[in-house]
């Protein structure tokens, strides 16, 4: 059990009353997280096991891609989570900048490594899917290229958080960057699509997603639910880490101040 200060139950000063701000109090947020977690874990495990079963065992092979289509079940949901992660990051940044919700910045910081992880999964599994289907480990098509750019947007955000002496400055700068990034993402996607049609080699066109057999939808959606559950579980866990680290930093600060005053 973490040590809680006597003031942990009082409302956070200066925070306007609103539905969102009821969870501005870290202790309250942690209680909510603890309540939600078992259900989330259950849903995640069930959908993960079912998804793996349907994906690896009980679903048909693709006419052209044969068994390699099974990689789609770990690849496509990862790409979805990569985008979901960045949206989460951007929304958290907006909430932090506009409404000054105290936990919003931390939510963004917590989400970033998770989103980056799923982006890496999407790239690696996409490459492994590509080799048997297209013949090369990497292909400069619009989707893969956009995902690489997304990875760099994540890394830039994470780097900015850690780039300042004062964590507060890193938080605010990263938040602005996230919003600039989310505005730029459609522009980047559009320009990469454009670039792809300009330079398209004749042999490779709209590859990747086969015509979806309904029997393939089941494992795909199950894995998508599982991935979302994993993302949220990781997010709650990382929020706890960030909150704990913030408490440690606060204790260290008050210790050094107490040392100075004597």
């Amino acid at each position, binding site marked *: 059990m*973490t*040590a809680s200060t006597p003031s942990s139950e009082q409302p956070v000063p200066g925070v306007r009353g609103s539905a969102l701000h009821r969870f501005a109090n870290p202790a309250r947020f942690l209680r909510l997280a603890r309540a939600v977690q078992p259900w989330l874990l259950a849903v995640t495990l069930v959908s993960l096991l079912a998804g793996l079963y349907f994906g*690896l*065992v009980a679903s048909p*092979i693709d006419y052209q891609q*044969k*068994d*390699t289509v*099974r*990689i789609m079940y*770990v*690849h496509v949901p*990862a790409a979805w989570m990569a985008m979901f992660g960045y949206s989460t990051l951007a929304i958290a940044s907006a909430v932090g900048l506009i409404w000054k919700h105290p936990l919003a910045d931390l939510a963004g910081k917590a989400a970033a*490594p*998770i989103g980056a*992880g*799923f982006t*890496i*999964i999407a790239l*690696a*599994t996409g490459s*492994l*899917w590509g*080799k*048997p289907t297209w013949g090369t480990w990497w292909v400069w098509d619009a989707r893969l290229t956009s995902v690489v750019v997304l990875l760099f947007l994540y890394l830039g955000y994470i780097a900015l958080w850690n780039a300042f002496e004062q964590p507060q400055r890193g938080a605010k700068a990263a938040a602005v960057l996230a919003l600039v990034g989310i505005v730029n993402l459609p522009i980047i996607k559009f320009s990469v699509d454009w670039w792809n049609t300009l330079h398209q080699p004749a042999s490779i066109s709209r590859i990747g997603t086969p015509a979806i057999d309904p029997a393939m939808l089941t494992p795909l959606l199950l894995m998508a639910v599982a991935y979302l559950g*994993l993302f949220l579980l*990781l997010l709650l*866990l*990382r929020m*706890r*880490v960030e909150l*704990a*680290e913030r*408490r*440690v930093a606060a*204790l*260290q600060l*008050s*210790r050094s101040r*107490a040392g100075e005053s004597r």
Partner: protein
Amino acid sequence: MAEFFAMGGYAAYIWPAYGIAAGVIIGLFVWSWRGLARAERAEAALGRRERRRVPKVERT
């Protein structure tokens, strides 16, 4: 069973793909749990030192 693992000859691509996905996700969990344990240990240590110092301040 062997047929299942062979995955129609594409085993070399399918299993590493699932493996990397699992590896990254498990890695994120492990990294986060260890970070949490470390932070809670540090918090407990700092909290102990705080409580030990309080009596001295009251004396002055």
